[in-house]
């Protein structure tokens, strides 16, 4: 079970991030999760949205470089060591994490992280075996 993430190339110049976000807002796209990776020259805006194909097309038409990837949305108990336990499972299975970012939802009991790994199938297998809950796109979008 994976969810679709969009990555947007954002030049490291004033107003560029705003332009991307406004483009999404104008298209009525709702952001569920977001992270911005940056270097000295450019940034990569990664987003989980409620309507990925709409967002993909809108950004593309506005001249942005967009890439779609499948990532994992993992539910973790909101307690100390929660994320470490997940990372341990993947580490033991030899799955590399490219990057991860957390997001908040209205529920207080759980925390949520997005994981980008090098092997989705293996990660899903080992996480499920360890009773870790993964969110489907549908669940995520309706949160």
């Amino acid at each position, binding site marked *: 079970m994976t969810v679709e993430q969009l990555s947007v*190339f954002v*030049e490291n110049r004033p107003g560029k991030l705003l332009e991307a976000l406004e483009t999404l807002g104008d298209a009525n796209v709702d952001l569920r999760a977001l992270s911005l990776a940056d*270097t000295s020259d450019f940034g990569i805006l990664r987003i989980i949205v409620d309507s990925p194909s709409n967002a993909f097309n809108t950004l593309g038409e506005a001249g942005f*470089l967009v*890439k779609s990837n499948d990532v994992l949305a993992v539910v973790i108990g909101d307690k100390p060591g929660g994320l470490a336990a997940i990372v341990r499972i993947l580490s033991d299975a030899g799955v590399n994490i490219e990057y991860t970012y957390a997001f908040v939802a209205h529920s207080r009991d759980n925390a949520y992280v997005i994981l980008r790994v090098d092997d989705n199938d293996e990660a899903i297998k080992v996480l499920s075996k360890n009773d870790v809950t993964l969110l489907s796109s549908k669940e995520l979008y309706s949160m």
Partner: protein
Amino acid sequence: MNYYQPQIECMPKDEMKKHQSELLIRQVRHVWDNVSYYKDKMIKANVKPDDITSIDDLYKLPFVTKDDLREAYPYGLLGVPIKDAVRIQSTSGTTGTRVVAFYTQHDIDLWDDCCARALAAAGSTKEDVVQVSYGYGLFTGGPGMNGGSHKLGSLTLPMSSGFTERQLQFMCDLSATVLCCTPSYAEYLAETIEESGLRNKIKLKAGIFGAEAWSNEMRRRIEEKLGIKAYDIYGLTEITGPGVSFECSEQTGMHINEDHFAAEIINPDTGEVLPIGSKGEIVFTCLTKQAFPLLRYRTRDICILSHNDCSCGRTLKKMSRLMGRSDDMLIIKGVNVFPSQIETVLIEYGLSANYQLVIDRKNHTDTLEVKVELNPDMFSDTVRAVETRERELREKIKNILGIDAKVTLVAPKAITRSEGKAVRIIDNREI
């Protein structure tokens, strides 16, 4: 007076013309007999060696262009058997193929003579210590001035470029009196000397600075900071290297070594020869070189020729400072750069990507930034993947240009277009 070969440098003008005519007749025969590539060009142009009876017939010969050099690469224009050639030098081509030039010992000797004349004109003698801070290797700057200094009998210090601290230490410890390097490096050294308080420790009296464009303002700044007289020098690998022409004490243009190189000014659009005093593209014919005897080579350098009497006593024609190019070549850190070279790299890399070159001069050192528009194939959601591509591109560009460039990835269509055409070059240097 400051001559190395006064009998040539001060030869009466009509005698020089006669001398050139004899040399040209012989040279055209040599090329016809030994360079089939050029012979074919002559046949196509319907010219035979017998049609060339004086230097005034030069216009009848077909031009050699950078395209010819690429087509004939590597040995197609070699005028002697390999056993008779002793040296290769090289410079950038317009694409991935570099220009290679060949020399016999005779060619090296005449090149050294030309550089020795330049050094003598700048006041160098057997008593002087000449610090050569041009790059050595394939680049002609170092080897040329090194050879000239030897010929003249000056004590030669083959520093090559870079390592500023060591340059300054040797300059002080060994009491260098003549400095040879690019003008931008001279200015950088001058500034460092000023900052380090070494001004009273240096013994420089003259500098010969070439391989890139500079202005009279820059000349005055260097002269003032170093307490020297600064001389311009011109040359190109295709013809020989530095020493094709050189400045004298009058500092009003560079005397062409006409006993080896015949100069013409042409209209770059039509190829028509223009009268002396006109601004146009300078074309050189090698009158004496054996191994790489280019006839009517189109340099793409724009300047003006003059033949007035000079206060230095030399009778050789003078060419003005370069006023531009008739192509899009740039000189960055003394290295010839063609935008088409970058394009070649991008295409090789599978990119039809748009690009822009931004050139600046920071701290008297040229900087090159290559902006490349990202395309979907190059983009990834991980920073690592994008940066790897950026690095690979930088290495490829460094490989082909020979200089380090900063590669900046920008968004599609981020590069300014004027009337739909991308602006390829932004040169912010103030010279």
